[in-house]
């Protein structure tokens, strides 16, 4: 379970998160939906213990993130928005490194690497330097590295973005499997179809505030709209703006 209570994050004078609260239950996929710059990545990084909150309380599986970030990192699997990897290591060397730091028993590590590498179809790249791999392949390496320790909670920051359809499908299957095992999963995206298909509940974040929350159906009913896209645009007040922008674009060509 992940509990976020009145979370505030300030960067210098800038307030990126203005007190957001939500709960992710065991066996639930919670989608954090919002336009660029709304504070999704910031929230995710705080949940993963990477940056400290400025105010408020975040508890992951009973551990307070502010008090014990290292313990949180031990049980959480975090997959960043853009893969940050050691580019001059090979994937196998990188997995070994992560496995060593996390103290994963050899047998388990081998078995998981084997399974995940096969699932994402990157066997042939295992011996090449990460820096020479395509963005999508790097993303897969990053995803695998985040899953190696069989985390209790998963924090995925737009993790499906760079994947081809087949891998995106595998990722969804994996997430559904994790859900059945009772893991709590937070999933941020700005792709609405993905959120609608995958998430049990969705929180819409805008300008550092959580402006709506519910199941996809609840959100649609609440906003009297047909699709989640309309809900999203309506809530983030960008519908007018978008149509005038589209008109201007058309005229430009």
């Amino acid at each position, binding site marked *: 379970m992940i509990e976020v209570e009145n979370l505030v994050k300030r960067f210098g004078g800038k307030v990126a998160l203005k007190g957001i609260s939500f709960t992710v239950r065991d066996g639930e996929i919670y989608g954090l939906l919002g336009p660029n710059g709304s504070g999704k990545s910031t929230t995710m990084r705080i949940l993963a213990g990477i940056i400290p909150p400025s105010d408020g309380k975040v508890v992951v599986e009973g551990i307070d993130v502010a008090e014990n970030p290292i313990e949180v990192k031990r049980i959480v699997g975090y997959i960043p928005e853009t893969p940050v*990897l050691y580019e001059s290591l090979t994937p196998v060397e990188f*997995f070994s490194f992560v496995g060593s*730091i996390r103290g994963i028993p050899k047998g388990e590590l081998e078995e998981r690497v084997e399974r995940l590498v096969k699932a994402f179809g990157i066997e042939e790249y295992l011996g090449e330097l990460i820096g*020479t791999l395509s963005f999508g392949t790097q993303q897969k390496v990053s995803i695998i590295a985040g899953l190696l320790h069989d985390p209790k909670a998963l924090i995925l920051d737009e993790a499906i973005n760079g994947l081809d359809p087949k891998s995106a499908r595998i990722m969804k299957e994996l997430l559904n499997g994790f859900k059945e095992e009772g893991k709590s999963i937070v999933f941020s995206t700005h792709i609405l179809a993905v959120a609608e298909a995958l998430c049990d509940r969705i929180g819409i974040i805008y300008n550092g505030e959580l402006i709506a929350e519910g199941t996809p159906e609840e959100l649609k009913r609440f906003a009297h709209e047909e699709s989640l896209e309309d809900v999203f645009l309506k809530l983030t007040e960008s519908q007018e703006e978008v149509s005038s922008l589209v008109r201007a674009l058309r005229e430009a060509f």
Partner: protein
Amino acid sequence: MEWEIVNVLYREMTYKRLRANPQLSTDWNKFIKAFKRSGSLKRTLLSQSILFGIFGLMLFPGVYYVKDPSGSAVIYASYCLLPLIMALYGTAVTAQYAISLGLFEPLLSLPVRVGGKYLSALLLITELPSTLFLLPPAVALSLKLGPVAGVLGFAWALMGAFIGHTLGLLIYDRFGKASGGKFSGLKTAFKAFGILLVMSLFYGLNYLQRYVASHYETLKGVFERYSVAYPFSVSTVEKPLLSLGLLAVYGLVIGAVYVLTVRRLWRRISEGTATERRGGRARLSLHSPALALALKDFKIATRNTSLLTGLLMPVVVIIPSLAGALKSGSEGSALGFVLAVGWTSAIAIDAVLKIDGRAFEVLHSLPLSLRTFLRGKLVTMTTVPITAGLLAVMGLSLRNPGSLKVLPLALFLPVATAGTTLTVFYWGIREVALPQTTWKKMLLALLANGIIIGGTAGLWYVEWFLSLPFVLLVDVLLLWHLSR
């Protein structure tokens, strides 16, 4: 237009280099200041030219104060190797670096035909100031032997830089793949050797100067006999016309090679950093966290020339004191050598903190305590100095078995100095992060290391076996601090 492109490429290269420096990239103001300082190609060229010109003044007396005029010519000819080697090394290394930064990617989508020339121009222009190193000795030459000799001499220095640059491009075009493949271990060894060679060039030059001064008679004969293979200016004195002719021939031949290489280069650049398969599938291997951190550091460093240079720097710095110890063979000089190793392991902190680069973020997402991180960095910092120190002391003991008394110090002193430096730099920091290098911290580290090294030396002279317990005490305190 062409200059504009080179200018933009240079700015971009500087930007990316500074951006990769974690100490700058976390502090925007500091970053902008540094970028303003070194982002302008014109300014950099100017300041570098002045710097190299001033350095070159050191070479002036070597040429000017030789009695025999042909002696001047021989000495100058030996200096002419410098621009060649510097341009060769600079080109080979920087070409790899510039391309790995993706500098040329924006050009790839534009209708550019011989794009390789921009890489060449970028490198050549940034190498030109180093040729000014030879301007003062060339002036000395013309004062001694007339302006024709001076001008021809400097023309040969420029030709040397051009030859080095062309060879550098050729080497990059031929071997410039990212490390990997069957012989990657061998390649790393070669690279390390090459780096050591170039870095010790300064000492070598010193030696060369003395050697040439005392043997120039013989050398003159050799140079003259092989004036076609080693044309640098020697024939200038007696046969300026021959020298001019050779200059033209070299210019034509190297020029042709250059044009061909630059044409081919673009293909390599457009293909990106193609790697060969790293033979077979490496197996997963697990280690303790601290060791895994250090192993990762070494893997990265051996695949990146500039990081490798940084890590090997301690070895170069100790060469003079090793030479001194070898010459005298006394135990005291062996101690002096080990103390020098102690100093250099403290210096290694700079290189060691640069290794992670942009990927430092990876460490933030792992359950890694600061202590473990620091233990790992301690291993990275001390491995090279300890290995070099132990090997050298064992070598010294062949001359004087008494040197073996400093062997334990060669093992434990680097741990003490490197550990102290880490502790000072990370004072007050509680999670895995990169420390700001402030003057205060540097001074403090200097002072603390001075006390350790001074204490070791002082105790040694009271009674040699007293120094070891002192160093061990520091080690134990540090390791206790790092394992809490």
